[in-house]
């Protein structure tokens, strides 16, 4: 068990990163720290994918010196997935940041606890 973790230390580390990000996104009360947590969480997943896709001793899948044997190259799909994931993560972060700006303009704080406290006194029936 421990031996397996040591051999696959990259994956183990990626999952730990994911856990750190996840708990930050869930439990931090400050909105910016939540967003940083979101990015750490996504990065953990990307690290997992990238480390899975890489095989020691093989080349990037671009034919330059005429070798067409698939065993000579690594699988390009995980890298493609990481790229897609990064695009998604960037757009999500952007929309969250814009929401944060809007919330700050209204309540002048980034602490969610204080914002909840303030919004409780507002009466907006409809």
């Amino acid at each position: 068990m421990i031996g397996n973790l040591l051999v696959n230390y990259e994956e183990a580390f990626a999952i730990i990163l994911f856990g750190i990000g996840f708990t930050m996104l869930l439990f931090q009360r400050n909105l910016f720290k939540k967003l940083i947590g979101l990015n750490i969480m996504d990065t953990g997943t990307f690290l997992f994918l990238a480390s899975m896709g890489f095989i020691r001793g093989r080349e990037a899948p671009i034919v330059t010196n005429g070798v067409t044997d698939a065993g000579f190259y690594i699988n390009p799909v995980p890298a493609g997935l990481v790229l897609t994931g990064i695009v998604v993560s960037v757009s999500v972060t952007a929309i969250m940041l814009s929401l944060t700006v809007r919330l700050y303009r209204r309540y002048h704080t980034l602490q969610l606890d204080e914002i909840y406290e303030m919004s409780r006194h507002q009466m907006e029936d409809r």
Partner: protein
Amino acid sequence: MSFIQNFPLFTIVLSLFSGVLCTMLKGKTARKYTVCYECVLIALVSCVLFYTIETGQSFTYVMGEFPAPWGNEIRAGVLEALFGLIFLIVMLCSVLGGARFIDLDLDESKVNLYYTLINLMTAAMMAILWTNDIFTGYVFLEILTLTSCGVLIVRELGRTTLAAIRYMIMNLLGSGLFLLGVVLLYDITGNLLMLPMQKNIAELCSTPGNMTSVAMALGILTIGLSIKSGLFPFHFWMPDTYSYATPTSGAVLSSLVSKCYIFLLIKVYFRVIGIGVFEQMPLKAILLVLGMGGIVLGSVSALKAEHINRMIAFSSAAQIGYIYMGIGLGGTAGYTAALFHILAHSVTKSLLFLTTPRLAEASGDSLLFKNLQGSGLRDPSTGFFFGAAGFSMIGIPIFAGFSSKLLFAAAAVDSGRDWKLILVMVVLAASSVLNALYFIRTLIRIFSESADKRRTTVKHGVLYKISMSTLIAVNLALGLFSWVFTDLIEKGLGMFG
């Protein structure tokens, strides 16, 4: 290859194109265009539905002609087409029924952007329904999340922004877990297309020791999607999110978006894991218990709410519980009941969210129960629509809600005579009583005399009445001809595996 086999792809591409086009149109034109193209989509999806019923089998559309383990695929069967059809009808009716409030809540120059979001959301929903590739599912899942956040924040109140932040945070946790689950499954199987994945997993699971890793990945994926769809104990974001949004957004979010996530989950169970392998995992019992918890807790919270929209939102949490209970019961009867309830709930809940703001308009723009007294008398047509939806929620015969409760009970009997049967029956009975309590209480309140006797001054447009009547007609069709739909769902599930 028949020409109809291109239609699923057309629905996605047309929706994406319409989203872009609406950014350039004026508000009113954008609405007319959206309504027209949704009608076209409904026609396309109906063609696919009839084609798949006619041929009796599903078809796969290979994108760019790259064969199976490499390319991306779209797959259409009876189930996907049926869900696409009902979802599109609900979408169209929500847009038509809430159009006046979109104009009221939004700045005039931004109305077209709302329709952009709606069209992109339709594209994402269609893609999630049709896709045969799990990573495409993830990408469109994120698009669905982003657009649903977009339609939520168009109303610039403090509370909607706060609700949107909360909604986004819960959804991002869910997407993160879903992505991790997908990556783990990819890691195990080496494929992203659903059928090759299923083949590899079936091979792996024939050796007993390998089951744990698959179950682990599936568990992570399931938690992610259940956070996104609002299964108990992750349902606390629902009331704020649904109650303060524009009526169309509330209707679409509660009746379509959360259902898309559940549809994707069922798709993963059937097509990625394979239902034989899934039935051996302990996940089912957990979903059953959580679903029942959601039913009881959602109904009790709804009973305590003082705000009509919050009550409806909490009852949404209970209905999501029903759907997961169906999945947890398992067997063809259980999945059929769950899928039927998705349809029944989406036509009912959208109707409720679209009528409550009109009741509020007749009572000085307030959604609090104490101010709603007599609003159904002041605005009789809306009162009638609300009443019909309320009856369906309670489970009065001839409405869809009754048929789905019957299906759940039948599924429980099918699942064997053990603790599950007794527990499910008790929960069904208790939730029916609670449902009846809070909806009949609401109906009595809105239809009883109050000091304020003036009629509503707002004239309802014809389109509003037509769209609400359509929703009621679909609801009645689901209730009266439920065997047609359950037959179709069973046929679709047969094509799924």
